[in-house]
């Protein structure tokens, strides 16, 4: 007589236990940021009792996608900031004696000091020491930055391996979701723990690369990065590859071809590293610019014992462009003097050609391309006693203090010790005048570099602060939607406990009723 009732009660007790399990699971995951609160949906199934209709997962996929997109942006900024912080630490411009500007200032004050007292041995050695110090500084900073650049290759590989692992896992979860759905369809579709795992992987993936995710009815996802390059679809995943030689990220299609997607990646740590690599390359180029300008400009005035080379002291960017001013060059030699006039429409190349055409036997002129891309003229006298005067004071017997094509091979001129003993004392005041222009030029380039590092880092930090605040806000919203309140869960548990106790008591009552009925027999 109570067969059906016992069945209903037993089913109810089992459902309450199941519901309590779900509540326990919620409490267990209260501090898990990827966990979405679950609520059992128990429906009356009259006349046969109740059943677990569904387990609702309190999740808003749209907000989660928004959060993940923001996470990509913040992660990219975070990575670039961390990299740039390393670079920033190289430029200790506020610490006395450590900043590059101090090396530059020390070098040029030493140069000017020597031009003030060219016979002073102390001033000579100070110039050589400060020049060597400046070379070491530039080389060390470049090496530091190249080391950072090389370390990004390692990080890139790590991140890409991680991305490939995650996409494989997500593809595998897609498969498991399908199986879980099929297995638990009739028992409340209790495979949602797989979705938490999926969300966790999606969050991790978003941290590494910007993704767009589409979810189907049962929770499987299709993941793609920018411009539709698919990373996961159904149970399949696509791999990324890092080309360290060119510092590019490649997407590997199933037919074996590879597509460069470096410029398409707009978020995640990959984007951050790519940007940092670009920043580093810019900084290295600017540091190179400082060295190249020093090599191209700084010269020392020499007497006839030291050299027969005379240099034009107004570097031009285009050797075929008109000079824009006129003047005359006087060549003093036994067959001379010969005066060569140049007009404002003549180019430096024209002057070179005119010298070679008119003074070929005594002087030879050549166009020299400086490491900084500018051009100058070098006139070599066939005899040390020959001299040259320019009406604009632009030609001097001199040699460069630095040699090389950039930081890599930058060095002091190997003849510098001889040059120091053979300075042209009559020209030092004019070279002191030139040095002010060189100093200003080099300062502008170096300060530009420091400003680039500082402004870039400042900009990144400001953007990070804003984006991170937005991320925190989205996280908070997401937490409000899917997070677990322990207090709420305990209240729900107490309700379940009460219901369970009440239902359990009906078994005793029915048992007593059955006993009474049996006693009547």
């Amino acid at each position, binding site marked *: 007589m109570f067969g059906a009732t016992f069945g209903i009660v037993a089913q109810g007790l089992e459902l309450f236990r199941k519901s309590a399990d779900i509540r326990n699971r919620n409490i267990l995951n209260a501090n898990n940021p990827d966990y979405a609160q679950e609520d059992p949906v128990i429906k009356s199934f009259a006349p046969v009792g109740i059943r677990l209709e569904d387990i609702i997962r309190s999740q808003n996929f749209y907000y989660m996608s928004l959060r993940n997109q923001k996470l990509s942006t913040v992660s990219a900024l975070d990575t670039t900031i961390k990299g740039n912080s390393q670079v920033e630490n190289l430029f200790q411009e506020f610490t006395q004696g450590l900043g590059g*500007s101090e090396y530059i200032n020390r070098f040029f004050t030493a140069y000017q000091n020597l031009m003030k007292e060219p016979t002073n041995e102390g001033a000579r050695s100070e110039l050589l020491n400060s020049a060597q110090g400046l070379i070491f500084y530039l080389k060390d900073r470049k090496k530091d930055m190249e080391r950072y650049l090389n370390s990004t290759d390692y990080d890139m590989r790590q991140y890409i391996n991680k991305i490939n692992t995650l996409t494989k896992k997500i593809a595998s979860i897609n498969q498991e979701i399908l199986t879980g759905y099929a297995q638990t369809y009739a028992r409340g579709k209790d495979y949602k723990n797989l979705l938490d795992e999926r969300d966790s992987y999606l969050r991790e993936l978003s941290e590494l690369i910007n993704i767009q995710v589409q979810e189907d009815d049962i929770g499987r996802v299709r993941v793609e990065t920018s411009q539709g390059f698919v990373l996961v679809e159904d149970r399949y995943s696509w791999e990324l590859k890092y080309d360290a030689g060119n510092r590019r990220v490649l997407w590997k299609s199933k037919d074996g071809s590879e597509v460069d997607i470096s410029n398409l990646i707009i978020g995640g740590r990959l984007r951050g590293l790519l940007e940092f690599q670009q920043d580093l390359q810019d900084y290295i180029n600017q540091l190179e610019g400082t060295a190249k300008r020093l090599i191209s400009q700084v010269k020392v005035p020499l007497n006839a014992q030291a050299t027969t080379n005379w240099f034009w002291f107004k570097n031009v960017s285009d050797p075929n462009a008109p000079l824009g001013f006129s003047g005359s060059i006087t060549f003093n030699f036994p067959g001379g003097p010969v005066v060569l006039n140049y007009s404002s429409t003549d180019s430096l190349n024209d002057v070179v050609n005119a010298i070679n055409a008119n003074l070929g036997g005594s002087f030879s002129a050549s166009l020299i391309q400086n490491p900084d891309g500018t051009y100058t003229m070098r006139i070599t006298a066939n005899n040390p006693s020959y001299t040259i005067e320019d009406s604009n004071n632009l030609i001097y017997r001199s040699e460069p203090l630095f040699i090389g094509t950039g930081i890599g091979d930058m060095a002091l001129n190997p003849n510098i010790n001889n040059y120091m003993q053979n300075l042209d004392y009559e020209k030092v*005041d004019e070279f002191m005048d030139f040095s002010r222009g060189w100093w200003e030029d080099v300062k502008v380039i170096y300060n530009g570099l420091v400003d680039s*590092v500082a402004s870039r880092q400042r900009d990144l930090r400001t953007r990070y602060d804003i984006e991170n605040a937005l991320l925190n806000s989205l996280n908070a919203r997401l937490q409000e939607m899917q997070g677990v309140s322990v207090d709420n869960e305990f209240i729900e548990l107490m309700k379940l406990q009460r219901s369970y106790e009440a239902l359990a008591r009906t078994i005793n009552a029915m048992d007593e009723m059955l006993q009474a009925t049996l006693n009547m027999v």
Partner: protein
Amino acid sequence: MKVPDNLLFSLFQEQDARIRKQLAEKSLEISTGRKYQSISDDPSATYKVLELKKDISQLSQYSKNRLFADTTLSYVDFNLGKITDTLNLLYAKTIQAKNQVLQSDQLMSIGELFSASLRSLLDRVNDQLGGNYIFGGASLTQKPFDENTLDYKASTEGFKVWLSDNLKVDALLNGAETFGLNVAISRASFSSPATNFNTSGALNISVGNTLINVNYTTTQTLNDLVEVINTNHSSLLQAKVSQNPDGTYSLMLMPVDISKDISVSDTSGGDFDVGTVDFYSPNVLQAVKRVGEKLSSALYPDDADLMLLQRAFDRVSFRRSQVGSVLSQVKNLQPLQENLSDNLNKQKSDLEDADLSQSIMDYTRYRLAYEALMRIIADQRDMSILRYLR
């Protein structure tokens, strides 16, 4: 509204990290005394500090240059003072010799004084400071005056140093200019100033930018020519008959204006046209030597000698006044440069250095905020159903 536990903890963590970061920044600011720890803290301030560092370095170099110029010019001034003292003494001795009746040995004795003074003058003009000859101009290491010929051998350019962006001064003087005399003495000499010239000719005289031509004829003597010049060109020139140490006579010309240069040539083929250089300009040393040699030869000094020594004294005094003027300019720069240096350093300090009272106030504020947050967390922890479940 549901408030998940994790959200509360996340919020606390976030705020805790923010306040701790602010506390750490202020602690660093107070401990280092620097407002900025890294260049990105304020890129604009970083840029200004770098500019100021360069300006301060450049100014410091200008100050070193000024000190160098001050030291060398002071020494130059001292030497020029000693030289004028010597020339003054020699001038007095020459007047004495000219106006008194002296025995030849007395004249020769004064000639000895000239000779000793010349050696002293030579030491002065060939003096060095810091390894550089102070009257060698831009040659620096080339001894300026030859000990035998007394000719100037070093650079004809002064050694210049920059004291500011726009000002450069001669710190080491060009001896040729410093001790050169604007006096022209003919190389042609005559046995008597009253003898007629053998061949007529014309003198081309340039005084400063003024050119004059003076003709002479065979009916004139050296005395006549001197009179003609003194009569017709007295505003520009003074002419004298100067007896040479060998007893012959030459024509001596000298601008009235001490600062004007003089050059004389004769290309007419007349008596004064003796070669490529018809007239020479002795320097101070050669002037002293010329008079000294005359005295040593027991010859009385004449008006030309007095005029020559007077001009030597005047020229050196004139140069000394020029040096004094530059030196005064150099010394005036000192307070200007020091003031500018103070200003630049103050600007740099204002940018770089932390305002400690403000930093400590901020630090206290952040610490209070941190304590308040901790209190809230502690209170919040107690607000849980778990407290009531037994």
